[in-house]
């Protein structure tokens, strides 16, 4: 049965909708500007006259970017790193979070404190660099994955989710003869899709977007993840323009920059809507715990 909305409610809803629409437009504008610039001609970019619509429409920048094999190489490297990283991260994080959510596990408290410490006090950069380097991860593709697979914050989100998991279900499974591991893999994990999606998304975005970290550890241009490759290609806009002949070239630093930025965020934008429902749910997990 539908409850009739009062006039006040309607006005309220209208106002809220209006505010949200305005906010959405505000966040959309920069994206549209960049998109427009990426399809604009060099002349239009030089004159700085591109706003929301491309001026002097051309595919020149996109052609340059998409025909660049280096970019695709980095793209696939990043996809592989993200997918494998997320799987590995979910495995490790859940395996740590689950025992920590159990009261009967005596060392849980100390381990939690240990995890929290890493959250509050980050390792200083020089010892961190030397440690990772001494493990042999300098200029190694695994450096894109391994250091990211366990973060305290994500682990705590998972732990609070597991703490709410109905004890009765677990007990019933145990009575039916399931061991701890079987219980974990066959009962707990399959019923935790929401938290896995949320945390997976967190990890995914982190690994996809990571920049500072690979910048520190990767010098081999063949191993550059996408974000670093982009940085390499768009570079620092030098104050003094190059004097090489630009005849026949219809892209500039700025249009290339725009194209490459759109290229890099596209995958995340495409994935987001599908995970959004879990995302909103999962992000609340930590807070509703009684």
């Amino acid at each position, binding site marked *: 049965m539908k409850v009739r909305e009062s006039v006040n409610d309607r006005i309220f809803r209208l106002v809220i909708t209006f505010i949200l629409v305005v906010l959405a437009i505000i966040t959309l504008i920069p994206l549209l500007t960049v998109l427009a610039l990426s399809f604009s001609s060099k002349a239009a970019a030089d004159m700085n006259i591109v706003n929301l619509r491309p001026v002097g429409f051309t595919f020149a920048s996109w052609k340059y970017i998409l025909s660049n094999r280096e970019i695709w190489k980095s793209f696939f490297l990043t996809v592989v790193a993200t997918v494998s990283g997320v799987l590995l991260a979910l495995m490790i994080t859940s395996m740590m979070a689950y025992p920590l959510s159990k009261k009967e596990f005596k060392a849980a408290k100390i381990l939690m404190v240990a995890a929290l410490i890493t959250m509050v006090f980050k390792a200083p950069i020089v010892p961190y660099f030397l440690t990772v380097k001494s493990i042999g991860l300098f200029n190694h593709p695994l450096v894109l994955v391994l250091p990211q697979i366990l973060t305290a914050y994500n682990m705590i989100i998972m732990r609070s989710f597991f703490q709410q998991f109905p004890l009765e279900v677990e007990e019933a499974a145990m009575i039916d003869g399931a061991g701890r591991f079987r219980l974990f893999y066959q009962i707990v994990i399959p019923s935790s899709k929401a938290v896995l999606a949320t945390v997976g998304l967190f990890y995914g975005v982190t690994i996809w977007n990571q920049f500072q970290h690979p910048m520190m550890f990767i010098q081999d*241009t063949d191993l550059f993840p996408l974000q670093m490759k982009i940085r390499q290609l768009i*570079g620092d806009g030098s104050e003094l323009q190059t004097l090489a*002949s630009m005849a026949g070239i219809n892209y500039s630093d700025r249009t290339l920059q725009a194209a490459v930025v759109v290229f890099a965020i596209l995958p995340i934008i495409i994935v987001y809507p599908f995970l959004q429902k879990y995302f909103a749910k999962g992000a609340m997990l930590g807070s509703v715990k009684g």
Partner: protein
Amino acid sequence: MKAKKVMALVLAGILTVSAFAGCGENGDPKESGSKSVSENGTVELEVWNCNTGFLPCEKDSELYNFYKELTGVGIIQPYVEWNGGSNYQQQLNLKISAGEMPDLFLPVNGMEADLIKNGALLDLTDILPEKAPHLWESVPEEVWDIVRSYDPTGEGRIYGVPNVRGFTVYSGLIRQDWLDALDLEMPTTQDEFVEVLRAFKEDDPNGNGMADEIPTGGREEAKWMDHLFAMYGLAMQEGAPDWDIYDGELTYAGVTENMKDALQFIRGLYEEGLLDPETLLNDKAGWEGKINSDRVGVCYHWAESATAFSEAMKTATGTEPDWAVLPAISAPGYESFYTTKQVTGLEWVVKNTEDEAVIDAVMKVLDAYGNPDLWDDFYYGIEGMHSEKVNGKLQKKADDKGTQQNLIINPANSLADLEFKVEMFKDMEAADESRTWALDQAIRDLEEVQQYGKVVAGDGMPSSVYEGYPDILNRTLYVEYASKIITGEYDIDKFDEFVEKWYASGGEEVTKAAREWYAKTQ
């Protein structure tokens, strides 16, 4: 309780083990000797310098062989993300703390001072004249004196090769074709200059029937409008007040009476609409967008940018502009000049080593770098990769970060003289005659602006004088007051308050350090 104790013990154990592991790593003698000699006797050096996104240089790559031919040394250049210099600095620091300092590198943000104190850099005082005579000759004697003042131990030793620019590079630029269109003479006094600006604003010099002209302007933080400040004899670099002799002593240009009068003048232009109302909001793209769309009459940039501005406008609007040098115009009672700084820090320092073979190799590289006969080769790079033959003349190809290796040894920008630069432009003309009209402007402007240049007393001052006072270095206070005075938000008398605040917030100490440094160069 018991569990806690066991845990603590385990943790302590892990800590101890990892601590020992760390020690073992550091003591490894294999790591510290990084020099390598390949089978055929070529010494290999690891070289680091600015790379804004080009490919690195690995052993036996094209650029490796190219440099080996020029210098006789194998140069390995890993890819180090520059990122405005901040990431480069971090990477370099990490490498140094791992005991893997590059053999030859560019130091950034005054990091050389600490390295010299710790004995990490090679003392070049005696070896350079002997083993790299070309370089020794190419750098003027007075510039070597400035380099001597960088020695933090006060002994005046030379620990690096400076980045030298022995001529005036910046200039006020004015649309000669606009002057011609309105039948105006090139202004020589401040009053004439203001009259020209008024004419630019009102008489439609671009002939499109709209009053869309912007007589003059600049960029955010009161940058890139030094031609206006220059009228008051102010030392300025790209909008940052510099140091010169005022009232007989080395002083920060930003706190002088000259600055007060300059701001007063600029504020007047702003009020009258002769200065772009968006001056303090323009970013690079914004301001250059206006320049390229045939709307700006007078701007300030590198003299050689006349070519780039002209060509960009031609493609964008079809108009062929003529960007001429705006003479340094003196305000009544002042002596105007365009600020020239010959030394912009160190370009190269060398890792300290006793290995004669490595020292000799480094000296070979530096000598080639300082040899004017090789500057062309270093500039044009590899034929096919960085340049191509057009009409029998080498010409640079457009930048392509996907295929070009980084030309890390670049004397054209850090050592070469005006003659070389002009020659470069003439070569470009020979290669492509259709560009002559634009390239001629750069050649003419470069030669013409020299008469207005003056080397300021703060030339070559190390950034270490600002140590502990980043806000003074970043001119936070200056930008705030200058902007507000120009836009009329603050009264001009507020300038005195700024001077007081500037001295109180560290300006006093910085001035003292700067004067101490200056005394050392005298």
